[in-house]
């Protein structure tokens, strides 16, 4: 029987295997940030261990950094300390670090691909669940906990059980006004937030192949929201074109050999998947969420569903709807919102800002909306200005902040107040994710832009 792309990459990274237990998996690339690494470094210190392969780890600070005045010292002490620790730890162990203000700084899952540190066929980990993003470039990438960060620092390996495998095919052309965020919100709304638990998901099909590299990243990014360990898309011309010439991409002869090798990396025709799902792209509309997990998504024009199930399911559903202040059967179009957040490793790349700008161009930000426009990286920030998007956005009354995770998880000052509604291009609408009591409505950049100019939930297709 043939092998899947995950089989192939996995098998080529096995150092050894434990009987009836996990495999020792070699890790090619390790990304770290300030929030989930300090305890790992202190663990190493306690054991008196050095970092085994410092050249394989790259560090950035992103999770709790301010998105204004980054050139000044971080005012909030509790945010400053983890960032300082990261600087000390990386310096002590000889790890490359992109501090605030550095041209390579940004959200960890944005900068990896952007710098060409993320490449095809690799094993990639980071102490952050959205490490799944990197899989869009055809590698095995997954989030790990801090103890595992310590393991990678100490040994460049991890003990891992091989996940089961799922294939999700999306076929057909996307309607105009529909973006890749809508595809993944649609898939999760159909399959549920735990459907992928225990699986690695390969995405394929004509719809996926037609997506740009950045759009693919949005899909793989949110594969974790269906519970999957990670998502992967086999490398093709789009991937190779994206990687060519990036700062850390292979160069010269090496590039030629590697890119040829990468292009041949794919699942065999007769490969076995434990589960296969097929979706029709033509059925997908702009999506929004109405509840407190990313599986609670609906096409923007439809109603909050009715539920009549039993026990804990019903209790969870009702708790969620109450938290959001919505009613079953209610239509969300036209509902007033208070905040708009565009950013995060899901939709904080240049194409997202282009999409956002395409709608707000020539219009004005609603006076009732507070908008946070947060580029995913220093490079994205620079590109926004280079392309003149900055002027369009400022003209429309928006302000562009500095890179970071920002309101995606509300660890810095960018918190949505209790009871307020935020249309957010991030990935999680959990209770309190964007601040205690905050009500998050997940959507793509078009929906966010339409809401930002009207102040209410609006179908972006009206503006096309």
């Amino acid at each position: 029987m043939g092998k899947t792309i995950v089989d192939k990459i996995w098998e080529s990274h096995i150092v050894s295997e434990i009987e009836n237990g996990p495999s020792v998996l070699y890790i090619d690339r390790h990304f770290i940030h300030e929030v989930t690494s300090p305890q790992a470094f202190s663990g190493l210190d306690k054991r008196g261990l050095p970092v085994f392969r410092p050249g394989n780890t790259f560090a950035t600070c992103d999770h709790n950094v301010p998105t204004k005045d980054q050139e000044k010292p971080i005012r909030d002490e509790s945010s400053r300390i983890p960032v300082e620790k990261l600087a000390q730890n990386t310096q002590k162990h000889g790890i490359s670090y992109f501090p605030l203000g550095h041209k390579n700084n940004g959200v960890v899952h944005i900068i990896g691909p952007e710098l060409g540190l993320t490449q095809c066929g690799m094993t990639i980990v980071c102490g952050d669940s959205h490490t799944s993003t990197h899989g869009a470039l055809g590698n095995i990438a997954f989030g790990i906990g801090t103890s595992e960060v310590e393991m990678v620092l100490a040994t460049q390996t991890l003990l891992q059980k091989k996940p089961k495998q799922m294939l999700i095919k999306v076929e057909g052309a996307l309607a105009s006004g529909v973006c890749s965020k809508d595809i993944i919100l649609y898939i999760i709304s159909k399959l549920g937030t735990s459907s992928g638990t225990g699986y690695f998901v390969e995405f394929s099909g004509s719809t996926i192949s037609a997506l740009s590299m950045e759009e693919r990243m949005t899909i793989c990014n949110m594969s974790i929201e269906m519970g999957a360990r990670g998502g992967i898309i086999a490398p093709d011309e789009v991937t190779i074109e994206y990687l060519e010439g990036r700062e850390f991409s292979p160069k010269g002869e090496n590039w030629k050999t590697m890119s040829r090798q990468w292009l041949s990396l794919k699942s065999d025709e007769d490969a076995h998947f434990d589960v296969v799902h097929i979706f029709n792209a033509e059925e997908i509309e702009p999506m929004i969420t109405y509840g407190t997990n990313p599986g609670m998504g609906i096409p923007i024009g439809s109603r909050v569903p009715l539920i009549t199930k039993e026990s804990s399911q019903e209790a969870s559903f009702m708790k969620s709807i109450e938290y959001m202040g919505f009613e079953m059967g209610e239509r969300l179009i036209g509902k007033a919102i208070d905040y708009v957040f565009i950013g995060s490793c899901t939709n904080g790349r240049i194409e997202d800002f282009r999409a956002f700008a395409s709608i707000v161009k020539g219009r004005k930000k609603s006076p009732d909306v507070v908008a946070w426009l947060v580029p995913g990286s220093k490079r994205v920030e620079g590109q926004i200005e280079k392309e003149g998007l900055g002027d369009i956005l400022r003209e429309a009354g928006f302000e562009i902040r500095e890179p970071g995770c920002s309101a995606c998880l509300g660890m810095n000052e960018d918190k949505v107040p209790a009871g307020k509604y935020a249309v957010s291009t991030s990935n999680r609408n959990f209770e309190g994710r964007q601040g205690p009591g905050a009500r998050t409505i997940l959507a793509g950049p078009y929906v966010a832009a339409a809401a930002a100019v009207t102040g209410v939930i609006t179908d972006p297709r009206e503006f096309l």
Partner: protein
Amino acid sequence: MSFEKFEVRVSTIKVLPLENIDTDQIIPARFLKTTTREGFGDNLFYDWRYNSDGSKNESFVINSVDNGAKFLVAGRNFGCGSSREHAAWALYDYGFRAVISSFFADIFRNNALNNGLLPVQVSDEFLSKIFSEADSDINAQIEINLKERSVKILSTGEYELFPIDDYKQSCLINGYDDIDFLCALKNKVEDFENRR
């Protein structure tokens, strides 16, 4: 990180019959700024445990039930969301030694196992039985036998077996973690690097 050995334990339980309890609920992001592993228990389930004015939410199980429970019982898909190991640290620091649910998110399961917190996966039916047992008796006791991989409702004697691989089982029984194991393999890692 070392933790207490786990073999057979009997304890009362606290129950949270909700599905999809995510790690942002277990420990909200704003409490992740500490750079040590200790002290997270005070902020466990913070936004459910305390009202917005900082007073205790007396109806929440952590506050309303005082039975010294070392086991938490929760609905399907426990620990979904972020990879923050702080969730496992917070549960352990609070005093929990096992979480019983019918389904665990992957990263949470690994994090728990790496910190001596046992994820016990049971069937939906058995989970409902535990919930109703707790409904009728706030001090209902559960026995978890890690060697036998069994979980039992003591009053009725009903039990189920739960999955855990041999390697992790022996780690928990002996209180040791993966790093020691992996460090002993460094030669193999170097060989691997040389041959690729």
